[in-house]
């Protein structure tokens, strides 16, 4: 039986850009799927196809048991969408926004009003309820946008990059809200370019690049594909690097890498925490001062890099790119942008390899 969100062979082209190139998805009821990929990978296009905003060229999509292409209006009754923008009317108050959305979900005016009060309470917006949302902070607008998507407590939710452009504190807060929501049994499809976010929120992850799903599995399964754990040491004194290297070679299962300028040494290991304790004792015995030491498991960043040959997002470009929320707008154009980002990423990887 197909899950609450099911897609088979979704294809969507814009001009000569294949934004979706045969995407299959299957999200079991009550779980969270993270759609992970860089800008222009096709995440937004996938969400737009599943939420009836865009008609795919070919393929099949079923949401909450309803065929998306045949009965789009039925699907709309069962879904909530929180897009890349905080899509709330800035000249309406928070309360008016929720009331309007409730009525457009075909609730009676009175119920829509009552539901607005409930949601404002739940999302900690009661105090700001009667201010126009123009005066809200970015985080508050996002919360209101999410509340608007939840007006009818839809069984299936879609969130397109819900935390893009938020500061870390607001991001944390929104994560908590999302976790709460999911614990109530809602099925959620979430797109993100933050690997940490997918790791944090999603049961299953689909890695998307150039309109294709290039890997899927749980966060742990994906990490396992990239390789095992490593011990990472930062020594206090530069002259200790050589000795520390010898120690690590004794414990390691592979080549030790050394970064001279940061005094960081890394070696692949098996044996986990017990082995880490041994490494610490040995370094201590030899009188090597340690600034930092730890057992490092591969992050989704590593996973992404090994799968695609480029990083999901260049950290130093983050501020610049999060401001550009254009994927929603002009998909075709952005797919090209994604292409250039990919080339940049590949260059980066070569530099890293040196």
């Amino acid at each position, binding site marked *: 039986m197909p899950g609450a969100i099911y897609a088979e062979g979704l294809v969507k082209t*814009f001009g000569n850009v294949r934004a979706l190139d045969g995407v299959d998805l299957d999200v079991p009821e009550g779980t969270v799927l993270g759609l992970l990929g860089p800008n222009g990978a096709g995440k937004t296009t996938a969400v*737009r196809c599943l*939420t*009836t*905003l*865009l008609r795919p060229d070919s393929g099949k999509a079923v949401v909450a048991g309803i065929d998306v292409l045949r009965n789009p*209006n*039925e699907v*709309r*009754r069962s*879904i909530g*969408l929180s*897009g*890349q*923008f*905080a*899509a*709330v*009317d*800035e*000249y*309406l108050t928070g309360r*008016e926004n929720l009331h*309007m*959305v409730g*009525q*457009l*979900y*075909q*609730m*009676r005016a009175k*119920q829509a009003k009552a*539901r607005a009060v409930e949601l404002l309470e739940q999302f900690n917006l009661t105090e700001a309820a009667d201010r*126009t949302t123009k005066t809200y902070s970015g985080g508050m607008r996002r919360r209101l946008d999410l509340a*608007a998507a939840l*007006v*009818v*407590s839809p*069984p299936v939710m879609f969130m397109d990059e819900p935390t893009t452009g938020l500061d870390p504190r607001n991001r944390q807060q929104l994560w908590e809200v999302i976790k709460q929501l999911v614990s*109530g*049994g809602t099925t959620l499809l979430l797109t993100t370019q933050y690997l940490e976010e997918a790791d944090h929120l999603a049961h299953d992850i689909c890695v998307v690049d150039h309109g294709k799903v290039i890997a899927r599995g749980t966060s742990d399964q994906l990490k396992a594909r990239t390789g095992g754990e490593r011990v990472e040491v930062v020594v206090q004194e530069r002259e200790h690097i050589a000795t520390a290297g010898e120690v690590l070679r004794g414990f390691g299962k592979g080549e030790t890498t050394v970064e001279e300028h940061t005094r960081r040494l890394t070696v692949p290991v098996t044996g986990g925490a017990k082995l880490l304790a041994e490494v610490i004792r040995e370094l201590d015995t030899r009188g090597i001062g340690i600034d930092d030491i730890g057992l490092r498991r591969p992050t989704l960043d590593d996973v992404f890099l090994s799968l695609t040959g480029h990083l999901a997002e260049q950290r130093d470009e983050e501020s610049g790119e999060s401001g550009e929320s254009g994927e*929603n*707008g*002009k*998909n075709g154009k952005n797919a090209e942008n994604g292409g250039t980002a990919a080339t940049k990423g590949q260059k980066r990887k070569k530099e890293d390899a040196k």
Partner: protein
Amino acid sequence: MSAVTDTARAVVPGGSFGQSVRDSLVVAKRNLIRMTRIPEMVLFGIIQPVMFVVLFTYVFGGSMQIGDSTDPGVYKDFLMAGIFAQTVTFATAGSAAGIADDMQKGLVDRFRSLPMARGAVLTGRTVADLVQTSITLLVLAAVALIVGWRTGSAAPSNAGEILAGFGLLLLLGYAFTWIGALIGLSVRTPEAATSGGLIWLFPVTFVSNAFVDSSQMTPWLRHIAEWNPFSATVQACRELFGNPGVVQSDAWPMQHPVWASVIWSVLIIAVFRTLAVRKYRQADG
């Protein structure tokens, strides 16, 4: 999960026409609330035509010939129907900008993902714009009276005819907001929508009988002016208001201006509403 079933029960029963009206009113209400929050937009919408009234009356008034008369007082009475008609059509730019803004801010996406009537977002917008146009027209008529405009100055007129004239003006304005809706859905930014909604209105409103006596134009231009949908409403208003400058012409719309005005407006609504709603449904963002 009881909340889910509760809200499901609170849902209004379907019924497509009733739903369409209800949804349109919800959206219209939202746009009217916005108007009260941005009063300066309404204010600028009023100031501009008032400026036109004053400028045309006092700057052009002395050098215009209407029929055989060069009396500025006659031009004043001639002018107002033209300015009124131009004012209602300028609402097009507001509709276009409003819809383009909703597209850009992602609100159209939100609306399109809701189980609401398909045309309601656009209908709600055009209805709210009609309210704004009515307010503008009311203020403008008052200003016109202050500067000396009088109905029945060239031919007899009564209250019913005057109201019918304003009715035709509002119908024309409503029709033009649907053109604006289509423009708003077709451009990328509200700024583009504002200029895109406005520039073509200058030839449309000036190659007409609105500001000058079209019977004095070169024949080919006169022909265009007399068949211009906009001219029909102006001519109809002059007739209904009993104002001077009613064009004597063989062109059908000039001979039956009231009918021509209604037909043109209904035709524009039928064509542009269809196109705009189709565009809205397909809006790929």
